[in-house]
């Protein structure tokens, strides 16, 4: 149990070991650890940012949805209004058309009545003329009695 040259040998071995560890072992490992720490913290930050983004996007989506809803409601209201207008318009047109048709029918009827009347009057006046000829037994000179004939026919009209 004595101190001897083994001590020196052990010190040399120890020095070499420490030197080697310092040079080739510690730096790459501690660097890797730091690097990973950085990576993890970056990842966490990114995740947090992502979550924030999602929240923002959700808010935006809700906003857009609201806008779209409002717009669609607006469009529907406009369309309804327009439809009402169209209905009203066509109602008015139809009414006018109807009235016009009634009007024209009435005019036609009137015309036909007039025509019938005219025909009747002519027939009546010729009949009256024939009757008068018969009564007088002679030809009525149309030119001579023109005045009378027209008077009578006017009364018949």
């Amino acid at each position, binding site marked *: *149990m*004595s*101190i*001897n*040259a*083994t*001590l*020196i*040998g*052990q*010190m040399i*071995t*120890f*020095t*070499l*070991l*420490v030197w*080697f*560890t*310092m040079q*080739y*072992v*510690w730096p*790459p*490992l*501690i660097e*890797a*650890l730091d*690097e*990973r720490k950085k*990576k993890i913290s970056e990842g966490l930050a990114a995740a947090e940012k992502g979550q924030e983004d999602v929240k923002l996007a959700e808010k935006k989506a809700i906003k857009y949805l609201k806008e779209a809803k409002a717009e669609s409601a607006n469009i529907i209201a406009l369309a309804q209004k327009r439809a009402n207008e169209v209905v009203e318009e066509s109602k008015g047109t139809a009414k006018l058309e109807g009235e016009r048709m009634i009007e024209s029918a009435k005019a036609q009827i009137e015309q036909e009545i007039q025509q019938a009347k005219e025909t009747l009057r002519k027939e009546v006046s010729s009949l009256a003329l024939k009757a008068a000829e018969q009564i007088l037994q002679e030809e009525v000179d149309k030119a001579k009695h023109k005045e009378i004939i027209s008077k009578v026919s006017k009364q018949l009209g």
Partner: protein
Amino acid sequence: MASEGGTTGYIVHHLTPLSVGEGFWTLHLDTLFFSAALGALFIWFFKSVADKVTTGVPGLAQNFAEMMIEFVDQQVKDTFHGQSKLIAPLGLTIFCWVFLWNMMDLLPVDLLSLISSLMGIEYLRVVPSTDLNATFALSISVFILIIFYSIKIKGVLGFAKEMTCTPFGPWMMPFNLLLKTVEEIAKPISLALRLFGNLYAGELIFILIALLPAFLQPLLSFPWAIFHILIIVLQAFIFMVLTIVYLSMAHEDH
């Protein structure tokens, strides 16, 4: 397993190192060989991890190495407040090396000496920490570093002032010097003797248990081995922490 020479002969045989040379120039070949081999194991493991280190998902070996590194790094950060490229790797080397030394203690006491005796080697002591040379080599290296950093940080004058003017002021100079010298010298001696004493005693008890009848041996060696698992880690840890503490004290300017 008592060989010729009886119980005492067996114990002495187990505690005699394989040595060559005379007087001071004696070399304990077993201590040198096993500590170098264990150092090579330590270097090989960490170097192989460092070579293919990844910042991604670490493998089993890298995970273990990182655990050790972070453990040592945390110890250094807790006690040492400064910048030093040396202290943390030094702590890692001391912890792992001393732990591997001590771990040799858990091998059956007769196994390696039996193998070596078959190979024609008469004496073999496999636990480097039961050799005072090994523990003192570590502690004296640490002591040299303490002195080196004390002078480097505080300057020769600052170091001289600290040695002579504390703790009782300049008027008590000789007394201060004596006190501080004892304090400084006590550091490497306590470091080396603590490790040596614990492991030597542990090994001795293993040897004593090995002398008992075979049916009694497991009953005693098993609990002692379990207890020793604690001792070997603890002693390695204490050596590392005290080294860090001493070196951070050397870095502090009063």
